[in-house]
């Protein structure tokens, strides 16, 4: 994946969310890194650090990059199971007819911000 472009999007989304909540400063951002995307977390962290000077609200924010495992839903038995590697299959019945329901996104989940008193 293209870590620089992705870092830029994460910064933009975090900054927008902070601005629309009227926040002065972002303290912490929790990011879910889907395993399926094969994002290099170190590279992503590097670009977040390098690009955030364009976003004053994010200057001191701590970015937590949490890996999110792939989960699939089985179209045969309906069970939802976590996957440990490629070649996805239902963990309950073994069928290959599955749909990825988690672990395929890079997401800003939530954040801690500081707002000045009015």
């Amino acid at each position, binding site marked *: *994946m*293209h870590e620089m*472009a*992705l870092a830029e*999007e*994460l910064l933009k*989304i*975090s900054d927008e*969310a*902070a601005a629309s*909540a009227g*926040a*002065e400063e972002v*303290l912490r951002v929790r990011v879910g890194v889907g395993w*399926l*995307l*094969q994002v290099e977390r170190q590279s992503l962290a590097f670009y977040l650090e390098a690009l955030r000077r364009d976003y004053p609200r994010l200057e001191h924010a701590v970015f937590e990059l949490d890996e999110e495992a792939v989960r699939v839903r089985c179209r045969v038995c309906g069970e939802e199971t976590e996957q440990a590697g*490629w*070649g*996805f*299959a239902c963990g309950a019945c073994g069928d*290959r007819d599955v749909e990825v329901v988690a672990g395929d*996104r*890079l*997401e*800003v*989940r*939530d*954040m*801690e*911000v*500081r*707002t*000045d*008193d009015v």
Partner: protein
Amino acid sequence: MCETQGEGHQHRHLEVHRHAMEANDQVAARLRRGFAARGILVLNLISAPGSGKTALLERTLEQLRPLRVSVLVGDVETERDAERLRRCGVPVAQIVTAGTCHLEAGMVESHLAEVDQRELDVLIVENVGNLVCPSGFDLGEDLKVVLVSTTEGEDKPLKYPAIFHRAELALVTKADLAPHLDFDREELLRNIQAVHPGMEVLEVSAKTGLGLDLWLDWIRAKVEEKQSLHV
């Protein structure tokens, strides 16, 4: 929303749940609706640089007639591939990404006017040569096709699993070279199936023409499928 009092300011917790590809995905969804409304099949061809995307298209575009085909070809620099493909007598638009290692939906949208969509059955997008970056960028296509040449090594699917997982079809290109190489065909096919069980695989050579019929039939069948959904 939990709020804690500080000295003249508050800490607040915000639930966000927005994902990094959302801007691209919105454009891709818009493109997909437009293609569906016109019954156009869109294929996104992805491979490492030099796996033979342009050569394959050069050999097959003319033979797709009477289907009406256009190509959007992405490259980091130069119009060379577009010039090669225009000789096949189909409308071709070059997207020069100027450094970006993948195509994004917005680039496709801004070049669509260069190919006449009213007169089209198939739009083929030749992505920028790269097995990693293009895989996550939805272009509004129906299907991704991944190409891997016999000269690249049997472990490509294991090293770049995301694209093999996402693509519908794998084309093993430069099949004519296989006898001259230490190419372990079975090993490559096994690795593809390990990443994407049941994946369709076709072996082709743009040089000798081997397997090209099956590739053309595959496209024709997908066009038929798409047009049957289009009322």
